[in-house]
């Protein structure tokens, strides 16, 4: 590293070459006044408050734009500099009437602080008195032009972080003002309500609308924790007054979000305090819930499960764990099921999202997780995104992709049947027919091999079974692939060359790849592609499944799966089982258990009698909902532990009130295997209890007492039994957390996998042939239905639909249909239609859009009123048992 030595105010400091005086000063704790500068944004150099003097140079220079050089002598303050700063602040103050009395930013306003520090008692200039109206059209953002100092931080945040470019300046000179869109209300623009503008605003010009008059900076208790929505694992700071979350900020030091958040992560927390929160246990009598005592409810649960176990045997019981709960809770849950129920019938919703990823990547590489880290994407030359609508499902990563494409020269290849937002930032967009993924991936590899673009050295030294694989791929000529997928030959070839020639290529995927009957095949194909080009085991490369739930990675890691114990250790392996039996002090069942969809099937057949569901909502999330209802209603005894009376909880015999993320401690593991600490921010609401404590209570009543005093103790036990978590202890998890594998206390964690060697030794090429989806449109059901998510909601909506701003922005579901098909069916925007499949039917409003191709329709599954999963098919991938959510056949009728 090139360092330079300089002095600031006589203090000798060292700095990296190329850094600015501002950066160096801040790093050394030297304060230079500034308003337009903010770390992480491009430099504007416009507020002119950071003017400093440099010995030997005339006049003053702006610290934020001036690079340090060897032997530079910087003076950050003297009478002349202070006078200048004072005058500039006076000028700002003269532009408007700055009223601090009821300002939300009072106490954390950078302008207020400056005026105070510079001792500005009187403004010598005439003060402009005109008062502009505030703009409150957005659900979440309040814009007060009177407090805007035109520093441009929000403009840059919107353009550079979210890459929405909604904000800019209009007019010029003293008439300059901040606009959104064509000087429209925010609600009419492309604003995605991420609130990056609020977080960066130095004054009260942009504030949280719903936090208005709810508390001031000095009244807040601040707790750092992890966002409970998606798998990115954003670190957040909760601002709490009277045990109520009022505001949320992104934590700048958060390794994967670097201070950024999406609309859910910033504004979607009011559900924690929602009036619907379950505050006491409920027991159903004659079809009606009645409030119960904890003892009463817990005793009933334990007694009933014991009865069923005695009567029908262990395998008549099952449990669904939760990707929303902590690692410690998932560990306890599967331990409880395996010990007290005596069965391996434990699974969770990862089955429905990334089971095929785990199956496919474990087979090819030996580890079923994201190979690389989020921050490494900036090192990639090419990022191939397929089956991931990243900007809506993982917005912080999606926006990062947009940023890299717009500012970093990173090339994006997007392969998706829908015209998702990322296609607008892609160099190449391949629009395949749904369910034809193996074909186009084989096609890419066909071109790469034929044109000699593959990494022969890597293939030879680090992989096996290449020749078998090559034989299959050789059949997939671009011409043949075009016929199957609809992707024009020349575009496929261009994409193959772009990925094949890249020094570092990264593959990113999500449910569009996994939720097929060929999900495992699709994942194996992507693994083949990465290995073929040597794109594994280096920074900025890899095969990167984006995990959907905040802790779905952790729930898998901790063994909430029917075939493995924590750390993906096979239940069927005697040696492994013995190890767990020894530590837990019980005999464990050797037979692998049932998966989510199989459990529901077994319930409807009467084979499963008792079910314990913690924090899951299969009545919306699982395919073929009518069948799910049948199954759940057929149970003898259903216990649901949740924070709301979900669609599933309504069917329960006993409902146990758990707590939200804000009310407990523990850890979440994010999509790039990072284990991060959750901090308890508020006490449990009502009589609700931490989920890990509830499990302990039931376990005790079923004859297996557990005696943990804290989640930290549970993690210590996890570490002792789980090699990939072997070095993970709470005392090590401050700040950046740890990325597994982390086998020992000394191990620093692993940012990217398979560095010199695959987990399984050599990477395994698997020849994969294209198989069409299980159900395709026909005369009776002529449309192909695909399902997915929208930015503003999460999973089954049990949280996000109880958030006022989120549900306010997106209050209802819709069916996306192409203009051509809409015309044919004579339907207009917002018309109601009936959509039906072989399994069910529903009514929904129509949104006509070019986002879907003709013949294809799209629905989200968040909305109970129009639950897409009434329609979806429960055809399963034979290996991973994941249902084919992405392809089913439906018909559409005008109502």
């Amino acid at each position, binding site marked *: 590293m090139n360092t330079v030595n300089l002095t600031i105010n006589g203090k000798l400091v060292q700095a990296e070459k190329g850094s600015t005086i501002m950066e160096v000063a801040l790093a050394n704790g030297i304060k230079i006044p500034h308003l337009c500068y903010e770390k992480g944004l491009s430099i504007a150099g416009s507020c002119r408050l950071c003017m400093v003097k440099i010995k030997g140079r005339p006049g003053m220079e702006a610290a934020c734009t001036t690079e340090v050089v060897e032997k530079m002598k910087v003076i950050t303050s003297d009478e002349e500099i202070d006078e200048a700063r004072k005058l500039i602040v006076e000028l700002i103050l003269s532009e408007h009437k700055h009223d601090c009395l009821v300002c939300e930013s009072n106490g954390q306003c950078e302008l207020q602080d400056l005026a105070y520090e510079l001792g500005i008692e009187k403004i010598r200039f005439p003060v402009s008195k005109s008062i502009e109206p505030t703009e409150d059209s957005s659900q979440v953002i309040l814009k007060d032009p009177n407090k805007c100092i035109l520093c441009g931080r929000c403009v840059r945040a919107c353009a550079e972080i979210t890459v929405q470019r909604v*904000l800019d300046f209009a007019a010029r000179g003293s008439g300059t003002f901040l606009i959104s869109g064509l000087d429209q209300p925010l609600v009419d623009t492309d604003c995605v309500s991420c609130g990056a503008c609020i977080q960066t605003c130095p004054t009260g010009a942009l504030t949280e609308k719903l936090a208005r008059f709810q508390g001031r900076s000095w009244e807040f208790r601040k707790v750092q924790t992890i966002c409970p929505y998606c798998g990115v694992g954003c670190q957040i700071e909760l601002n709490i007054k009277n045990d109520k979350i009022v505001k949320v900020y992104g934590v700048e030091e958060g390794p994967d979000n670097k201070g950024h958040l999406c609309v859910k992560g910033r504004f979607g927390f009011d559900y924690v305090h929602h009036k619907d929160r379950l505050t006491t246990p409920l027991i159903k009598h004659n079809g009606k819930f009645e409030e119960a005592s904890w003892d009463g409810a817990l005793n009933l649960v334990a007694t009933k499960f014991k009865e069923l176990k005695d009567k029908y045997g262990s395998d008549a019981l099952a449990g669904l764990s939760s990707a929303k709960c902590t690692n410690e809770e998932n560990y306890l849950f599967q331990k409880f099921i395996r010990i007290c129920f005596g069965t391996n019938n434990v699974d969770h919703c990862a089955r429905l999202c990334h089971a095929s990823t785990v199956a496919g990547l474990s087979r090819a590489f030996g580890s079923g997780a994201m190979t690389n880290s989020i921050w490494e994407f900036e090192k990639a030359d090419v990022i191939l995104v397929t089956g991931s609508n990243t900007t809506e499902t993982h917005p912080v990563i999606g926006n990062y992709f947009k940023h890299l494409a717009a500012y970093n020269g990173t090339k994006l290849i997007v392969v998706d049947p829908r015209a998702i937002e990322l296609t607008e930032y892609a160099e190449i967009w391949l629009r395949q027919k749904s369910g034809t993924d193996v074909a186009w991936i084989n096609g890419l590899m066909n071109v790469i091999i034929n044109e000699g673009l593959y990494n022969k050295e890597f293939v030879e030294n680090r992989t096996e079974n290449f020749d078998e694989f090559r034989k299959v791929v050789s059949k997939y000529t671009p011409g043949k692939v075009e016929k199957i997928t609809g992707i024009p030959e020349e575009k496929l070839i261009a994409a193959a060359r772009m990925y094949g020639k890249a020094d570092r290529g990264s593959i990113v995927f999500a449910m569009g790849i996994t939720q097929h009957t060929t999900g495992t095949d699709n994942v194996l194909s992507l693994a083949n592609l990465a290995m073929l080009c040597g794109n594994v085991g280096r920074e900025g490369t890899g095969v990167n499944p984006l995990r959907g739930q905040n802790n779905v990675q952790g729930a898998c890691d901790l063994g909430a799966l029917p075939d493995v114990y924590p750390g993906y250790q096979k239940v069927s392996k005697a040696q492994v089982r013995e190890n767990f039996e020894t530590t837990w002090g019980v005999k464990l069942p050797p037979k692998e258990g049932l998966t989510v969809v199989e459990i529901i099937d077994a319930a409807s057949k009467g084979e499963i009698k008792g079910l314990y569901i913690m924090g899951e909502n299969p009545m919306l999330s699982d395919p073929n909902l009518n069948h799910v209802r049948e199954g759940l209603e057929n149970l003898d005894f259903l216990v649901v532990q949740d924070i709301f009376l979900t669609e599933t909880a309504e069917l329960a015999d006993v409902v146990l009130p758990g707590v939200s993320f804000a009310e407990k401690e523990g850890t979440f593991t994010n999509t790039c295997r990072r284990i991060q600490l959750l901090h308890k921010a508020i006490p449990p609401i009502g009589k609700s209890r931490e989920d890990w404590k509830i499990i302990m209570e039931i376990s005790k009543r079923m004859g297996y007492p557990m005696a943990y005093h804290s989640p930290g103790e549970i993690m210590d036990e996890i570490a002792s039994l789980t090699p990939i978590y072997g070095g993970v202890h709470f005392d090590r998890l401050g700040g950046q957390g740890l990325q597994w594998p982390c086998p020992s206390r000394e191990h620093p964690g692993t940012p990217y996998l398979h560095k010199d060697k695959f987990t399984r030794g050599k990477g395994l090429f698997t020849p994969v042939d294209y198989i069409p989806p299980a159900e395709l449109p026909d005369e009776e059901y002529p449309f192909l239905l695909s399902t997915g998510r929208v930015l503003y909601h999460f999973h089954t909506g049990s949280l996000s639909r109880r958030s006022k701003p989120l549900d306010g922005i997106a209050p209802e579901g819709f069916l996306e249909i192409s203009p051509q098909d809409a015309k044919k069916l004579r339907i207009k925007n917002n018309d109601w239609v009936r959509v039906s499949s072989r399994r069910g039917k529903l009514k929904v409003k129509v949104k006509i859009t070019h986002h879907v191709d003709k013949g294809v329709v799209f629905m989200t599954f968040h909305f109970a009123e129009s639950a897409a999963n009434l329609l979806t098919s429960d055809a399963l991938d034979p290996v991973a048992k994941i249902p084919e959510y992405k392809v089913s056949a439906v018909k559409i009728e005008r109502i």
Partner: protein
Amino acid sequence: MKLRNKEKDVIALLNKAQRENKHNYITEDKLKLTAQEAGLSYSEVYGVATFYSLFSLKPRGEYVIQVCDSGPCHLMGSKSIFKVLEKELKIKVGETTADGRFTLEEVSCLGICNEAPAMMINEKVCGNLTPQKIREILRELRKKK
């Protein structure tokens, strides 16, 4: 494609849009179209369109009369030119006549300072202005259909 590839053309596109409009302004539709063509966001196009003084986002008269009030013209009597025009057209600077024929604006230097005071009517520059000359020019314009 939201990658900025043709943003260089934005000023030319706006210019064309304004010239083609008989009220000498850029309509909202054209702003949106320009954003698409240039690969800019709406706010960026709006920011550009309002930065440059030759663009207007409000309908203007058939004839836009732009009078220079920079140093040389000011010295040579531009204030009296404004007065005459305001009186003749019965509007103030920045306004358009009720019949939609004339708009009066104040602009910076037009580059014919040796003929100050000067003004520009649409794209035609007129110098050495006197109240008399202005009345003649207006008479000519009013005669035109």
